[in-house]
């Protein structure tokens, strides 16, 4: 009996190991309950939401500095950069003729295609999660102003992230704080159709900020009558007051209204009155973010490489600056210091083009008639620094890159070289004041207000380019210069019917020139989104990215492609004849 007793005891003892002991907590990764457990944490989530959205739009993937998303492709698709490297689709997306954006698992760049989409949607959801907590009954971060600041910022982040997707992709599931997560929308919303919702979210951000201002004024609260001040880490390096916050949001509203357009018709249909109003009410200076060496405040590297094969500036666009030798011939093409020029270049078939010296009055280019002289003008010695802060392009110093003939260029982008050499850390403009001036200028042109348009264009045209100011323009088609001056005007653009010669551009082209030079490399698709609305993209260029197949797959939908001959959302023959 005693044995049986002990056996029974042993069985019972081992049996006691059962019960509810089977579960084990996860002590390594936070879950949503832990993440939003305390008011301070909710504020942190919201504070980080714009960084996440920014990083999803144009940041480096991880801390490595590599921009493995759509930005490198957008650069080459609009000639903001040219490179024949396969990395991140630089060469393939920018090659001519344009091919469709393959949207399947075998596409080398499928991960790039999905990055901005998924990252932005998740950043929207993060902001929305914060809003849901803020809206929950009895919840407060500590004060009404704190709550309004967080609410304003969350709406802004959510709108920014949703706008990134709406502009770059053909459709999306728009994320908001009112979603019932268990029932995601079964259909995607077109980017153009999504914009009113995005603008409403931005208006909600502005309204919250205004309420904070009103509250601050009424109570002389902590915001000192301005409602609140954003901690400088929220938009890194910008301790914005509520009023400045509103200015920033209105700047983005102006940008997004214009950029969402896919075609010239869409662009014409934009509410330019609102764009002008928002642009004029936006921040009076550049919006700089203090970049660091780690995510999220880190811009993807490809934009700033000056290495041989990663970046160069095809003459496709910047050749329009070539103002000195207008009318030259194509003789002696193989001599880079010889007789070639933009006119001859565009008259030559694509496969036989050679890089040439751009001699121009625009001071954003190096001066000099020879390559050696331009290299000296670009900055001598070993220090790779622009000798003046309005030198945006450099005659590359040593080895020349390879690539398609039309890709080859003696120039690379130089404006942010000093910043780049500093480890890509420090203030970096993500929205230039010039962009807003030129958005307003475009609105004025479209409304026939050429006086105001000229004034806006001349701001950078004169101060940065040292070009003659626009005067006396009374029509949108009128060249900005006539007679002999027309041969040396900037810009000179390929002209119909053959597009094999260049002529002095009109006020719209002058505005486009300024906008391209002043916004190059500042934000996602700076040239691309404008170019598609202006009708300047090469024929068959995809007008937007398709919803990534990774997204359609999880919804059991068939993926589609955009761009390419006969494809969905493919650009028509561009204004420049390609």
């Amino acid at each position, binding site marked *: 009996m005693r044995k049986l007793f002990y056996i029974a005891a042993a069985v019972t003892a081992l049996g006691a190991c059962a019960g509810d002991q089977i579960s084990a907590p996860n002590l390594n990764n936070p879950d*949503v309950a832990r993440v939003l457990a305390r008011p301070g*944490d909710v504020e942190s989530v919201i504070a980080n939401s714009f960084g996440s959205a920014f990083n999803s739009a144009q940041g480096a993937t991880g801390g490595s500095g590599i921009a493995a998303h759509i930005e490198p492709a957008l650069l080459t698709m609009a000639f903001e950069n040219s490179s024949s490297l396969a990395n991140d689709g630089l060469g393939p997306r920018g090659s001519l003729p344009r091919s469709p954006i393959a949207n399947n*698992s075998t596409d080398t760049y499928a991960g790039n295609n999905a990055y901005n989409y998924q990252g932005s949607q998740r950043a929207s959801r993060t902001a929305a999660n914060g809003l849901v907590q803020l809206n929950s009954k009895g919840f407060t971060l500590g004060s009404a102003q704190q709550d309004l600041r967080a609410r304003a910022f969350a709406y802004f982040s959510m709108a920014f992230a949703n706008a990134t997707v709406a502009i770059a992709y053909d459709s999306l599931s728009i994320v908001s704080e009112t979603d019932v997560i268990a029932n995601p929308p079964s259909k995607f919303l077109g980017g153009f159709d999504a914009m009113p919702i995005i603008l409403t979210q931005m208006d909600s951000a502005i309204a919250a900020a205004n309420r904070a201002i009103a509250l601050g004024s009424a109570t002389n609260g902590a915001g000192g009558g301005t409602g609140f001040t954003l901690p400088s880490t929220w938009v890194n390096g910008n301790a914005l007051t509520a009023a400045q916050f509103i200015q920033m949001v209105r700047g983005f509203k102006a940008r997004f209204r214009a950029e969402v357009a896919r075609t010239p018709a869409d662009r014409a249909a934009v509410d330019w009155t609102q764009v002008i109003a928002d642009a004029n009410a936006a921040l009076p200076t550049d919006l700089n973010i203090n970049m660091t060496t780690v995510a999220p405040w880190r811009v993807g590297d490809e934009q700033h490489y000056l290495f041989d094969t990663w970046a160069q500036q095809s003459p496709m666009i910047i050749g329009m600056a070539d103002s000195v030798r207008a009318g030259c011939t194509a003789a002696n093409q193989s001599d880079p210091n010889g007789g070639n020029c933009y006119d001859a270049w565009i008259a030559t078939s694509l496969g036989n083009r050679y890089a040439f010296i751009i001699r121009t009055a625009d001071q954003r280019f190096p001066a000099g008639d020879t390559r050696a002289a331009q290299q000296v003008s670009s900055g001598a010695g070993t220090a790779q620094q622009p000798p003046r802060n309005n030198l945006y392009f450099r005659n590359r*110093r040593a080895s020349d890159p390879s*690539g398609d003939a039309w890709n080859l260029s003696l120039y690379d982008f130089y404006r942010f070289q000093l910043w780049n050499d500093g480890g890509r850390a420090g203030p970096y403009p993500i929205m230039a004041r010039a962009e807003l001036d030129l958005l307003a200028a475009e609105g004025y042109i479209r409304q026939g207000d050429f006086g105001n348009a000229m004034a806006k264009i001349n701001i950078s045209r004169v101060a940065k380019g040292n070009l003659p100011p626009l005067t006396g323009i009374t029509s949108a088609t009128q060249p900005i210069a006539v007679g002999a001056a027309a041969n040396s005007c900037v810009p000179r653009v390929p002209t119909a019917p053959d597009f094999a010669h260049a002529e002095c551009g009109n006020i719209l082209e002058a505005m486009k020139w300024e906008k391209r030079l002043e916004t190059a490399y500042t934000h996602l698709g700076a040239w691309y989104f404008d170019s598609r609305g202006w009708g300047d993209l090469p024929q068959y260029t995809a007008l937007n990215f398709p919803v990534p197949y990774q997204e359609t797959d999880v919804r059991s939908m068939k993926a589609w492609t955009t761009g390419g001959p006969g494809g969905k959302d493919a650009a028509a023959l561009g204004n420049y004849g390609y």
Partner: protein
Amino acid sequence: MRRTGLMPILRNALVAFAMLAVSGFAKAQAQVVVSGTVTSEQGDKLQNANVFINELNISVATDATGHYTLTLTPARLRDATSITIRARAIGFTPTSKLTTATTQTIDFKLRQDINRLSEVIVAGVTAGTEQKMLPFSITRIDAADLTKSAATDPLAALEGKVPGANITSASGRPGAPPAILLGAPTSIATQGRGTAPLYVVDGIILGDQLSATGGGGLAGINPNDIDNIEILKGAAAASLYGARAGNGVIAITTKTAKASADGFHTSIRADYGTSDIERKLPIAQTTGMRMDPTMTRFCLNVSGAYAAPATGTFAANSCARSIDYPSVANFINSYPDVFAQTPPTFPVDPGSTVTGSALKNVFQIDRWPGVNYNAVGQFVDPKPYTQQNIAISGKSGPNTIFASGNYTRQQGAIKYLNGFQRATARLNAGRSTDDWNFAFTSAFAHDTKDGYQEEDGGAAFFRLSRTPPIVNLEAVDDLGRLYIRPNLQGGGSQNFNPLYELQNYAQNTATNRFTGGAAAQWRPLTWFSMNFNFSYDGTAATAISFQDKGYRTTTGPAGTSNSGFLARRAEAQQQYNAGIDGIVTHTFFTDLNTLTSVRYLFDRTDYNYQVLSGNWLGVVGLPNAANIGSTPSGTPSQTVGSSLTTVRGLGYYLNEHVVWKDRYIVDGLVRRDASSLFGSGHRWSTFGRGSAAWRVAQEPWWFIPALDEFKLHASVGSAGNRPAFVSQYETFSLSSGNVGNPVTLGNRNLRPETVIETELGIDGQLFHRIGFSLTSSRTDSRDQILVVPVASYYGYSQQYQNAGTLAGRAFEASLNIPWVNTTNFSTSTRLTYDRAKSKITKLNVPAFTAGAAAQGTGALFFVRQGEEYGTFYGRKFITSCGQLPTAAQGSCGSGKDFQANSDGYVVWTGTGNTPADGISKNLWQARLPLNSQFFSTAAGGDVSHFNTGQVVNWGMPIIERDSTGAAKILALGHALPTYRWSLGQNANYKRLTGSFLLDASKGRSVYNQGRGWGFLDFLSVDDQQTGKDVSNVKPLGYYYRAALPDNGSGTGGLYDILGPNSAVTEDASYVKLREATLSFHVGTFGRLGGDWSLTGTGRNLKTWTKYKGFDPEVGYGAVSGTGGASANSPGSAVLNAVDAYQFPNLRTFTISLSTNF
């Protein structure tokens, strides 16, 4: 956290056992003595034969004269009037005799059991069962087959010996565990889980492998301690082990003195040998770099010259400046700072991007000038292999002890590396009383190894493959330091001297492992017994990666890399298992024997991991974490991470084993398992099996007397694969105290994968001699655990789901032929054959790609319904006219525009030319006209401005494309071999014994990334054009990268793009002389006494293969991380058939001297 309550419970249980034991010891009284001798049929006296009475729990061994004595107390007899005495010896068929319980003499004469049909199997069954009585397939390998292999890892010692066990030594780094796959793959995605089976040592379930420090597996086990290994390949056999055994089970039994005669015995063994690398890494011995007319100096690039594509050739007189390579190498390396100076740049530099017509008019035919160094020869440095082993076993009445100590040192064959060192100690003890058996086992192992993380595109072997013959890796600069950049060509860090890295980058791991267990068996009644066991497996491992401050790099200015780097990782794992069972045996109708068992089990695993790393060390020579500093801008450079997990499991089963007339066998099992790894909504899963066997040859009506054993067996059973720890949880990313994005959407319904196997087999024996075994199995692995992306709308990026079924088929066969078996001479042959494949038969999520994690292999595999698992994909070069675009197919063939060249690739030649005309007609510069009718598309755009985007150069390989012009992604090969076979041959003549083992794999493909990337730098041996007829030589571009539209600077060569293609996917079939031994039995050695043997052993001696890499036995191991492209990786080197700069396998020769006292 709640306490589990395990320790107090077990403490109580052990107290209970102790008291029971004491109560059992107090019964010794008067006795019955049975004695006799055991001999073979030939009359040889059998020492260490086992004579036992199972029902009375008594067993003794024979002495050197074959004599035994069984002493039975009345208490032990328990009033029995008759007893069944059995005699058993290894290699002999046991015999039973029924007699009265009186003092008497009984002799036994045992017949040889050549095919080991009477061996007792203990794994997968609830009570020891003879091999011939098993209703499913289990392979057993005995000690003698293991210890002669000179393998430091028991798994490696199994290579070629077990049909159905695909064991791949994917890395030759000493101490690196081999990858193993038993039967057909059962999981699509084993990232973080692996394909390794469950390891059980003396009933101790070992913890999962340690991933962070590369430890785990069986590396801590001394092969000399092993008595036998049982391999359960399928779920049917392994179902006893439930949710952890879906990949099968390897059960190891270590030595005890249980079967010895009384007294102490000592065995000593000392091995001394050396290791080297059998095969050579093929590197081009010629260069295309331009030299001056003396062919001794290299021409330089003149900086700043702009070269337009059409004129980008280098004229013959362009060598205005030239350099002496060794002098410049000395100059740039002798720079006193922490980096080498930048070397000059060369035209047609193999380390830089080569563009323009050089790709079409430069042929790699010039020998490098001056001394030609053999980098591989400088890198490989044969080093000693030594082993000392001592084992003492002793028996005194009911008490047994086995103790051993071993020190093994395998230093490998790579300069500056010290390889693998392991010290082990083991103590096994037992006590057997009237109704109790106790067994205690304990083992400790300490091992160290280095060279960790040197296997990657960027580490030492990669850099070695980038070393042309002119480069002297052993050169030292004026300051006595190894050159940091002996290679002057472009290419940045890939020109880093790999020897410098090995000399100055310490990457060491150290592992301590203790395993221990206590088991008690209580047999209060002849028909009833109980087993209790508790076991523990604890491993603590540390790893250190250390580059001292001042570490030199190839280029300046001094930066992070020179500031030093330190990473320290520590991980520890404790696993506890406990179980209790009750077994009832009963015989009905005299010949219907039944065994019923019920078992209850508990397991718990705790895992703890920490890592810290950083740069900017304060002072030299201190691998102390406090030495990690901040960047020049003041940012702390330390990064830290950790993981803490606990896994708990419970289970119970009921097993019924029925044998009728010794020829009809039926086995049934039901097991329920719970695990904390399952989702909270699905904590319990059910597994089980039903098995039957029919020993047909035992039927009275059996009409083929020559076929004396013929067993048919069939089994259906299930076992499981558990999810990884993180899988069920909702997670956000976390770093430096900052919560990042949502990552994983939790899944409370996550279940284990359930592997259901149907196994059919035949075991037989002819003429009492020739043994054969055939086994066929089908598996259905349901509820595949996959990482599935979720709509980004949710905010989370992924979820672990049960989302598919993998169906496998496997077949294995073995044949044992003892040709001659006499006292003085014997010889036998053993053949094995197996094949295994799996197919994805169901996928509940959209198809996706998965990778091997080596760069460029992120989409190597397709996961889609109908896919044969292990097929890998990439781009194909056209080898037949039918693969050309439709518009070109009619223009393909002899004399036409497209023809096959000497390599078999269809290339564009133009009408009237042949692929041999490249030089004689000066055609290499030609390019298929833009907008050619062969490639233009109907909607090809504005033809006056654009080409079609696809460039086809004369004579260059052409990628197969679809109608849109996109490259097709096609099946290139298969990671699983079509079949494998082995042949083992043993011979013995008097005192001389010899053996060899051939191990072969047929039909496995490997993506030879090393060779492919060698094309990029013109260092692949294929680039070498010397010795070829002028009609067959190919220019540089033929081996270089893709042309438009995939790339702008290439001409369409075999490197193509970064990823896999058909040119570098190779048949990795091989036959290896895996083992060869020659042993001389010296016997007693004069006054020294003992029983001495001298043995010479060779391992991995010779490989016959057409594979062009270092070693066809290769694969890319498990990858780190749980997200992204690698999330659904096969996670095992058996399946990741990628050759990406791994350590090649070692060839080892040893001489062993052993003796027994």
